[in-house]
């Protein structure tokens, strides 16, 4: 039996990465975490957004890595950056200062209002799984002008209630975020391997806005831990172009050659 992926000539992961990359506009400044966000942002830079300015929390501004970094502070980022500033400056002058157009975040758990958990599964004091923790996420979520969230969709990750709120989306919805006085607009899209979700005003609950080719509504429902809703007019995600796929695969091939194995996930 042929899987949908094989029949389509690209994987769900590739569709997710390419969809995320397309959301980045040329000339934007983008605060990038390691893993999927870094992959998508660099794909955008290598395709339609050559002047996308990539900022990594370790200090590089305007990094143009030829291969994907394994860690957030790889030498490749430092060597290709326009400049490198100290970490407090990145967070205080550049992110908090209001100069980041897009913040790109992943998560272990996410809820219907785009709040995320990267801290702990189970109780904080008696964790079932101790996750790496906050990193740059809480302030990226608060201060970037817009936030894109990017993670694989599953009922384990898309939960009705987070075990721990590490970083906020729209809290419990409505104007709750606005009342916090955050300077950034919050998450405007969740990009998954199945679809793109967008917040629906006025509740700001995330609903399915665009479905990737070959994916069914049923698949999305099953992969979501809450009763997921669909927008009135759901779009069909454009399939990857030849150029997008080629660039993405070249980037991953170069990276694999450099690091000796597939690019790992996680911030760092």
């Amino acid at each position: 039996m042929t899987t949908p992926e094989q029949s389509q000539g690209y994987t769900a992961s590739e569709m997710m990465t390419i969809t995320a990359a397309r959301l980045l506009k040329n000339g934007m400044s983008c605060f990038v975490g390691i893993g999927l966000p870094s992959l998508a942002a660099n794909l955008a830079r290598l395709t339609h957004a050559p002047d996308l300015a990539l900022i990594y929390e370790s200090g590089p501004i305007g990094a143009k890595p030829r291969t994907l970094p394994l860690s957030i502070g790889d030498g490749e980022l430092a060597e290709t950056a326009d400049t490198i500033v100290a970490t407090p400056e990145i967070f205080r002058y550049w992110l908090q200062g209001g100069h980041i157009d897009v913040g790109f975040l992943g998560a272990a758990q996410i809820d219907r209002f785009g709040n995320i958990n990267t801290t702990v599964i189970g109780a904080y004091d008696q964790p079932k799984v101790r996750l790496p923790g906050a990193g740059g996420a809480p302030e990226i979520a608060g201060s970037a002008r817009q936030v894109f969230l990017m993670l694989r969709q599953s009922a384990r990750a898309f939960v009705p209630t987070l075990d721990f709120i590490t970083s906020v989306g729209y809290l419990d919805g409505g104007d709750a975020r606005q009342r916090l006085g955050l300077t950034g607009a919050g998450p405007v899209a969740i990009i998954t391997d199945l679809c793109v979700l967008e917040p629906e005003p006025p509740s700001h609950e995330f609903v399915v806005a665009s479905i990737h080719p070959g994916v069914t509504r049923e698949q999305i429902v099953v992969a979501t831990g809450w009763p997921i809703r669909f927008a009135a007019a759901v779009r069909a995600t454009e399939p990857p172009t030849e150029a997008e796929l080629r660039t993405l695969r070249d980037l991953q091939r170069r990276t694999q050659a450099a690091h000796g194995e597939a690019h790992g996930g996680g911030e760092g």
Partner: protein
Amino acid sequence: MAATPSRAAILSQRGICMAEIMSLREAVSAFITDGATVAMEGFTHLIPFAAGHEVIRQRRRDLTLIRMTPDVIYDQLIGAGCARRLIFSWGGNPGVGSLHRLRDAVERGWPQPLALQEHSHAGLASAYVAGAEHLPFAVLRGYAGSDLPKYNPDIRFIRCPFTDEELAAVRAVQPDVTVIHAQKADRKGNVLLWGILGVQKEAALAARHTIVTVEEIVDDLGAWPNAALLPAWIVSAVCEVPGGAHPSYAQGYYERNNRFYQAWDAIARDRETFQAWLQRHVLETADFAEFSRVLRETQAAADGEGTEAL
């Protein structure tokens, strides 16, 4: 953490400070005591692994460790039983996954319980800035809506005295000792670093004592304008330890050993494997030079066997 008055008292008692060039063994012995609050900084780049090993060799106990990204260096110290408390903001193995020794200490109290004080990067970076600025706290736009302040009493919320806006405040971190690795020092003890700088300068200026390991000691630093330079008079000890950031990297000297970070996952996942590794590579080696020789041997043997057991 030291309260502000005691630091002021120390500053006013302090004589003229001037870096001494000494061995890493002497520096750790002189400045790092059991129970001390120690920051070993370096954001992926220039992580002072050699100094971490020396602390393990000298069997320091009950340390409060501060580091934005604990990384493999603190996984080793925690697994070796040196720490009772960790102040941090992201505790993973970058690009690989979990820090298993950190998780074992937190989830199962092995080899001893580890108290966590947990920040965001922006929060902990700001706490270092406050330490460097000799302020008791820093203000930031942060933590709004997050559960972190519920579990960290060193995060509070204050109001702007001009606009009444609510903002986060974090208590300053003021390490007893900060340890960093840099590319170069000159013979007077002036230190030059470049590339990814992390919070090293802030951590150095916030501390009572700063130990710097360097790739090399040179006659002339050859620094460019506005270089990240720490003058000898804010440094306590400079130790020449070539390769001392490995498996992290030193820009201009050597690259990050990503393979070691990947292999660490298997080493650290299991208590016995970890202990054997620590015994053979750290506790039974005299210094970082010997560690490096042993590591090369293990690595060559692993290559021969086609395994990842370093």
